[in-house]
């Protein structure tokens, strides 16, 4: 207990052995940014090759390795760890806890990540190349027909799953046991709520993913035939197992983003969230529905029509709670007193673009129409609207929003706003045209395309380069803030912000809430 009042340890040991939720949160955030850059680099290779018809820069085999690694690194390396980092930093500060419930496990769940991604990236240099079967790794392309590096891929997925499960158990334990007295469930900030539900999703589906890759491993090395038709197995079984994990996974990615935006929009509208209760219920219903819609990714795989109908109706239903969320955010803004600092800009960008992604999601849910949309660029456009403009924009908003609290310094607002506008324009230029080429018949995951798709692809590549380049400005702004930002010691950096994290000193001290705060107001949540 004694060393609680000391500052952080010195040197590299501080980071290697730390059990402090803020240190671990910081490491998660930097790590995920590094992965964002790496995954972004792969994306630039993809877009450069697709800039014009014909093969110019890479070979088709390498192109497939790029799309595969891009997807895996962005989903498992950039987006997921970034929100875990945010949870580490913010959840204890939001519920009035001194730290996470299981600090040593917390250290582990972070430190197994970097070697895993190093291993995954090293497959690029292996005989036969990196995995080239897409981030959805359908068997038998990922088993019988996979490069030898698939075994390393399987090992990586196992470790990533382990890390996620440890992280989520920690979050569940923290939220259930460490809330300050008086912080009832229905007073928790929405970010905490969304993460609690996300953590349950993770604990439920990561083992399913582990099962899928274990079956692959058995097929590849131990002579089983789970997914091999020749041995009496079933390649479609793989897809069911994968998407039973995969669809909840997309909500694992987006729910914390919902949470972030539900903190930021009220703060800059200077008005409480319109319907706190209904937001909580909507989140829970989305989480529930996410378990019974997985086969909407498999409409063309040859399901019986009854199954097709069931999954179509269930998927369409998701639009209801999703709509509730969007309506809530907008009525929160309604007759507020709005200002547009960078976090708000990114949240509004999220709101507009995520809604568009929700609309295309609704279109995709219509099974007969999906027979035309499926595996075309329309799907690529859809999921980038929800994952980049959804998850990544909201994560960016979160960094700008809480950075002053974390380091006691203010970022450069003009540069932040510039970053937003360039990102916004670049993103839309990159992904809006993909709706068109998809509808016009361009399949996804191809390194070269027919001439009628050329113009939109060039636009798309230009947009992608712009979006990619604008992230350098983000990195610069964050580093400049930490190094030489304008110091601020105001507890409440944003005048409209609500919640316990704004009652502690700025910058947030190494240890906070060693004695639990008193929760008095009914407005503990924002």
């Amino acid at each position, binding site marked *: 207990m004694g060393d609680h009042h000391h500052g952080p340890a010195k040197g590299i040991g501080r980071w290697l052995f730390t059990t402090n939720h803020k240190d671990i949160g910081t490491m998660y955030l930097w790590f995920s940014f590094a992965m964002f850059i790496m995954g972004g680099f792969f994306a630039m290779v993809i877009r450069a090759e697709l800039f014009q018809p*014909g093969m*110019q820069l890479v070979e*088709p085999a390498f192109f*497939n390795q790029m799309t595969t690694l891009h997807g895996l690194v962005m989903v498992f390396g950039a987006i997921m760890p970034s929100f875990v980092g945010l949870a580490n930093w913010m959840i204890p500060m939001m519920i009035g806890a001194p730290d996470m419930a299981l600090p040593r496990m917390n250290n582990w769940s972070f430190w197994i990540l970097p070697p895993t991604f190093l291993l995954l990236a090293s497959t690029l240099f292996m005989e036969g190349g990196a995995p*080239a079967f897409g981030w959805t790794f*359908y068997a*038998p*392309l990922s088993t*019988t*027909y996979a490069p030898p590096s698939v075994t390393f891929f399987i090992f990586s997925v196992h470790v990533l799953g382990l890390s996620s499960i440890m992280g989520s158990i920690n979050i569940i334990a923290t939220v259930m046991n460490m809330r300050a007295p008086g912080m009832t469930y229905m007073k928790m900030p929405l970010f905490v709520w969304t993460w609690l539900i996300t953590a349950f999703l993770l604990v439920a589906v990561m083992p399913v993913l582990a099962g899928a890759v274990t079956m692959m491993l058995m097929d590849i090395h131990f002579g089983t035939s789970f997914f091999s*038709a*020749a041995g009496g197995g*079933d*390649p*479609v079984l793989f897809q069911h197992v994968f998407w039973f994990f995969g669809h909840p996974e997309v909500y694992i990615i987006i729910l914390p983003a919902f949470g972030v935006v539900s903190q930021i929009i009220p703060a800059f*509208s*200077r*008005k409480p969230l319109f*319907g706190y*209760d*209904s937001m909580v219920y909507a989140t829970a219903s989305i989480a529930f529905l996410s378990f019974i819609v997985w086969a909407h990714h498999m409409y*063309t795989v*040859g399901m019986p029509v009854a199954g097709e*109908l069931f999954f*179509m109706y269930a998927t*369409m239903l998701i*639009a209801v709670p999703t709509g*509730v969320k*969007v309506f809530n955010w*907008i*009525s*929160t*803004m309604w*007759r*507020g*007193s*709005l200002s547009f600092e960078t976090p708000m800009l990114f949240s509004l960008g999220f*709101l507009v673009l995520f*809604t568009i992604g929700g*609309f295309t999601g*609704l279109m995709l849910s*219509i099974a007969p*129409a999906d*027979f*035309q949309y*499926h*595996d075309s660029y329309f799907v690529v456009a859809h999921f980038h609207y929800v994952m980049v403009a959804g998850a990544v924009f909201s994560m960016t908003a979160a960094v700008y929003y809480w950075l002053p609290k974390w380091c006691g310094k203010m970022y450069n607002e003009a540069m932040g706003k510039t970053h937003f506008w360039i990102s916004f324009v670049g993103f839309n230029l990159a992904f*809006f045209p993909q709706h*068109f080429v998809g*509808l*016009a018949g361009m*399949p*996804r*995951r191809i390194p070269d395309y027919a*001439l*009628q*798709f050329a*113009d*939109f692809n060039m*636009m798309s590549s230009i947009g992608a380069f712009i979006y990619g380049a604008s992230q350098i400005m983000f990195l610069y702004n964050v580093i400049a803030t930490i190094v030489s930002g304008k110091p601020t010691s105001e507890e409440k950096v944003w005048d409209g912000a609500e919640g316990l994290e704004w009652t502690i000193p700025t910058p947030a001290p190494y240890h906070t809430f060693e004695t639990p705060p008193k929760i008095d107001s009914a407005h503990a949540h924002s």
Partner: protein
Amino acid sequence: MCFEAKRLFRLALGPVLMLLSAATMAAGGEVSSFNMSPGVTAVGKEIYSLHMIIFWICTIIGVGVFGVMFYSIYAHRKSKGAVAATFHESTKVEIAWTIIPFFILIGMAFPATTTLLKIYDNDEADMDVVVTGFQWKWKYEYLNEEGENVSFFSNLRTAQDEIYNTTEKGEHYLLEVDEPLVLPVDTKVRFLVTGNDVIHSWWVPELAVKKDAVPGFINEAWTRTTVEGIYRGQCAELCGKEHGFMPIVVNVVSKEEYAQWLAEKQGEAAQIKDLMAQTFSMDELMERGKATYERSCLACHGASGEGGVGTAIAGSAVATGELAGHLNIGINGVPGTAMQAFGSQLNDVDMAAVITYQRNAFGNNMGDMVQPIDVFNHKKG
């Protein structure tokens, strides 16, 4: 430059054009570069109008939602002195925005269900075609016809030079094959789709068919051809390295033309059967071999055997070495390279001829011959 600018301008107007052209598209049936094609089938048109209906519903909701949002951004800004209201929570409003979308969804579910049921109505087709996905080509096999079953492979025809930018790209770049699927017009065709190695997906947008080709399973899909013409599509499921290079071309022709084509094909098949039993002279083999070489090998091995994507045949150690080894590569390919196993694509006569040709053309002058029976025996092991 000016031309470029104009083109980009037109592109920027894409969304607007999409809305305006919606009506004309539905009637016309031409291929759009920014919207779904209604295609040439009744089901395709239905899917298209379903797509447009949902698109419009989303657009209208979007205009409403974004309208409120932008009004708020405009009118309720702090810089204009807006003071925040304090209202929150209203059960009435919240019930309304849960129930109303729910009813809109039910409204969408009706047409979606009827169209889906039509897509699944596989019964009573006039003819059946087995479509098999291979890494990386399609095989078509006509069932239910009198006489020989006709079957053939359909390969990408675009030259490597076009792909690697050393010559001008043709009009149907990447969407052309050596031998298209030929179908009669006004016919309900059932496709029995399966995969040979990994999963592929057979997609022809204008015929409104997309079905996964899964090894070990036979999926059914159907279309009713209505308009003669050439319809192009591509493999839609990642199936490995050349996934982007296995297009589909369907040639819908009049019934007479189809009958004639089929008879020709059946004749060819019967002829090949006869030829299999024969022994050929060097000249015969060389002539046939040259034709086969130009059709199937030239793209990678070059017009005079100088190589390209594939190794040089002129002076190659294999083509000037032991015959069995050469034949083995022709039949089984070189796994893990672009050199495919041609044993399942070429008939034994063509295989015998092309190997003989490679051994005796381009200055290789080995003087030995391969007969169809040798190929047959090699395949048997």
